[in-house]
């Protein structure tokens, strides 16, 4: 049985698992962005929060994913369904690069540009939305890109708690000591990661036409 045949014979299951995988990654990235970008902005406004927030996000990243899944199993509502746990854990892992890049993106905007905007009578809000965020956007997208690639990989482990995704093949292959089956999960997952990386890189370049 070679891999190509395996994929052809199991194309339904393969697409099912790929969709599950994409759903886990998509949802957790959505949550991570919705929480991470405002947090990143907030710590540029209240610089004292910078260390505690970034520190907490780093500590979360050091928790082994299986252990994090385990902790969350005990939480009411969340622990009822494996995919809820998986999405929350993955979102937590994705936070650090997003918060950090939002912060460095905004603080990295040339202060002369910000000051000239302020000098022309722009309000803080106008400066944030018209100047700082647009100029920081490439850096923020780069953070999302790193987080996405990371999440596609970690999401394979979610199969261990029954959340589905391409990790199913990997864990099945591990249980059956079948390298082909492990590869059947690993290769599409790697392809997804590369695809996301490439797509977001393209987006990052499209978003800064001014830089040529």
């Amino acid at each position, binding site marked *: 049985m070679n891999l190509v045949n395996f994929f052809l014979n199991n194309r339904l299951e393969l697409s099912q698992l790929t969709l599950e995988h994409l759903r886990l990654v998509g949802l957790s990235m959505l949550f991570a962005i919705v929480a991470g970008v405002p947090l990143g902005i907030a710590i540029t406004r209240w610089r004292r929060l910078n260390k505690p927030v970034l520190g907490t996000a780093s500590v979360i990243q050091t928790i082994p994913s299986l252990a994090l899944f385990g902790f969350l199993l005990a939480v009411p509502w969340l622990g009822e369904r494996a995919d809820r746990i998986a999405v929350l854990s993955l979102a937590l892992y994705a936070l650090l690069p997003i918060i950090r890049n939002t912060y460095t993106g905004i603080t990295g905007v040339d202060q002369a540009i910000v000051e*000239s905007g302020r000098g*022309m009578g722009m309000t803080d809000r106008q400066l944030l939305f018209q100047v700082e965020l647009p100029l920081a956007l490439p850096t923020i997208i780069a953070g999302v890109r790193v987080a996405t690639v990371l999440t596609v990989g970690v999401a394979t482990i979610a199969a261990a708690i029954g959340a589905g995704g391409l990790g199913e093949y990997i864990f099945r292959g591990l249980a059956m000591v079948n390298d082909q089956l492990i590869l059947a999960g690993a290769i599409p997952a790697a392809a997804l990661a590369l695809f996301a990386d490439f797509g977001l890189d393209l987006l990052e370049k499209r978003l800064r036409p001014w830089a040529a």
Partner: protein
Amino acid sequence: MTDPAHDSAAIVFERVSYVAGSNLLLRDLDLEVRRGETLVLLGRSGSGKTTTLKLINRLVEPSSGRVLVERRSTLDWDPIGLRRRIGYVIQEVGLFPHFSVERNIRLVPELEGWDGNRIAGRVRELLDLVGLDPALGRRYPRELSGGQRQRVGVARALAADPPLLLMDEPFGALDPITRNDLQHEFRALQQRLNKTVVFVTHDLREALLLGSRIALLEAGRLVLVATPEEFKHSSNPLAMAYMAAFGAGEDGRDGS
């Protein structure tokens, strides 16, 4: 708040000091900027000239004393309203790199809520005023030469027709020939527009060319206020030192 003695003055500094941390950047400054004049703040880096400028549009606030703009203390102005009445030009980095030339110029009118037709007309008018091809309007700042960018900076500052204009070494980053062109054009423009201008430079030649009066600053103190003619013949030691330094290097100096 108001003081009839300052009637002809657009801006008045009253014993203004500014302290940042433990550094006294400006000490007891008394200075008037008259309506319609171009007052040049001349001095070395660290002399306090940029601080003086930023006190006018309240990018910094006085540690003591007060700054009156149109007879009202800057602290009594709403800072946003104050700044919208004051054009601000700094070295080329001040343009928004992610805005086209046109969007840069229309920024303040847009913030002020002008309608679209009026803004479009104003942008054309301004491009023409500063001698730029209207076709450049769609370009991004990095696609322009340094001289063109600086013209855009001036157009942007003039966009909402503010009565006051603050310029912080606007021509400092240009090559000598372009700088010379822009200085002369700016002088002609100023004679037509009759704005009150406060202009920061460390270049004496620029100060003599553009200023109706020159305020010489050194280490946070005002040393002298004089017309260009008076300045050239001043017996003040620092003014003489400036004249000597600039005069002596006449052939070979790069002006910066």
